[in-house]
């Protein structure tokens, strides 16, 4: 998929030799799938097999107190599936932008050595696309974790004062 993508970009935009595949040979598909699935199967067998054996040998003594949420001995008040602090949301949002940009750099990084100047200038443009929004976010204070609570405290202090 990536190779199709890069070769299309290459033929449309850039002119120059594409990277040759490395000299070391890869696995055949069978070897690849068998190798990885052995680990997947082992993970499943050990995980669920262990739980099944545990289900047979372990005691089960249900008690109403055991079914309650553990909050240091106090009875829990309400559900914990509640709305939570939006600052976590900001981090997730900034991350999505960043991670997509980093993911797009992977195929580029592999072929960069053989593509020279056009790839370099493409990188400069792309890097500015990452760096300028990052500096903007930094400057606007979206990367500050304690910003919101400080503003709230100041507001409440001001309201008390008037």
């Amino acid at each position, binding site marked *: 998929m990536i190779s199709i993508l890069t070769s299309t970009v290459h033929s449309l935009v850039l002119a120059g030799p594409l990277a040759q595949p490395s000299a070391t040979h890869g696995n055949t598909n069978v070897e*690849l799938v068998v190798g*990885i699935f052995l680990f997947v199967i082992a993970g499943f067998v050990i995980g669920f097999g262990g739980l099944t054996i545990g289900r047979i040998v372990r005691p*089960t003594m249900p008690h109403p107190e055991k079914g309650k949420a553990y909050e240091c001995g106090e009875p829990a008040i309400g559900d914990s599936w509640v709305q*939570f602090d939006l600052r976590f949301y900001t981090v997730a949002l900034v991350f999505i932008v960043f991670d997509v940009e980093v993911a797009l750099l992977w195929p580029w990084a592999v072929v960069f050595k053989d593509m020279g100047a056009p790839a370099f200038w493409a990188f400069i443009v792309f890097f500015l696309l990452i760096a300028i929004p990052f500096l903007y976010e930094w400057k606007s204070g979206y990367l500050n974790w*304690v910003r919101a609570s400080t503003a709230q405290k100041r507001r409440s202090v001001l309201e008390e004062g008037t």
Partner: protein
Amino acid sequence: MVEFLTSQLGVSIILALVVIGVMLGSVAYCIFFERKIAGWVQDRFGPNRVGYRGILQSIADGGKLLLKEDVIPGHVDTPLFILAPAIIFLVAFVGFAAIPWGGQLQLGENLVDIQVAKPDIGLLYILGVASIGVYGVVLGGWSSNNKYSFYGGIRAAAQMLSYEIPLGLCILVVVLTMGTLRLESITLQQTEYWGGILPMWNVILHPLAFLVFLITALAESNRMPFDLPEAEQELVGGYHTEYSGLKFGMFLLAEYAHMITASGFIAVLFLGGWHFPWIAWTQPEATAWYAVIAKMLVLAGKITFFIFLMMWLRWTLPRLRFDQLLRLAWKGLIPITLGLFTLAVILVYVGRQQSLPWALLGNAVVLAIVLAAAGLSQVEVTGRQANLPSIRPGPVSTGTART
């Protein structure tokens, strides 16, 4: 039969079984070593009652966890509650399939690779699999329907997302230098020498990237000083507060499996994998069976070193506060890695990606720029923020240490 066993597929299957077995054993024994190292750091014995000097402690622990009652509280989301430990355990396991263990082995006429799977995108595969691990933690925290677990879960999400960006950029530095995503090619390129003496390991070429990678790997496997999601003192047990019995044990095992995978990844990317300089047995040309065993032992030694380092750090360093944690990622590591990445791009562009003096000079320049920028802009990467506006009237507290 013999023909099958000496083919690549047969060797892969045998190696997979060996690696899975060794990994299970070493994961169990990691817990024992962790407690022994804790004892060493804190000047006490550690476990020493079960077997000779406590050597059977892991087996006793496993038996205890298996025989304990496994409570599924009534208020949880049961399918997700069971799925979460399974996911985190599986993911920590599967990433290990692509680690190159010992170069090539001569079997009769065949030359087979001592590596279970050799995908073209080995690096991307490990990174992708490792990223799924966050689901285990978040689902565990969410499905428990407990406020401690929930808070641990969202903390874990924010932390793992934040540290994934510097992690990816650090790996991009290596990819740019090596020009490939295949782990075996990356190892192979590191087996050459500068001036015939110094091995071309990436840790020598890009020491800053190695340091940042080590920090982010610690954060990604939720180890001290980044174990905010399960911080015992504030969140009881974080995302595994409601888990008991074997499911709790699976979270514990997964953490150590994750450590082993992360250590293997660091060893392959930055420390030359199975390569040990100056010894003929660990060079890529050596393909006899004893050379392969020597190479596997070298890689295992490097992994053991990193696991020891992680445990040592855990019992030495205090935990960061959550705002410090995120500030370190967004205002410390990401600018540094962006600088390192630019450096790698420039080095490759001028064709000096394997030149030691240029790379070290570049690293020094990046470090100097970062330190100068931090000094000029008064941004502290960790510690109290000195420039917050004062809330109370009266003398302004700068927040620095009292003298």
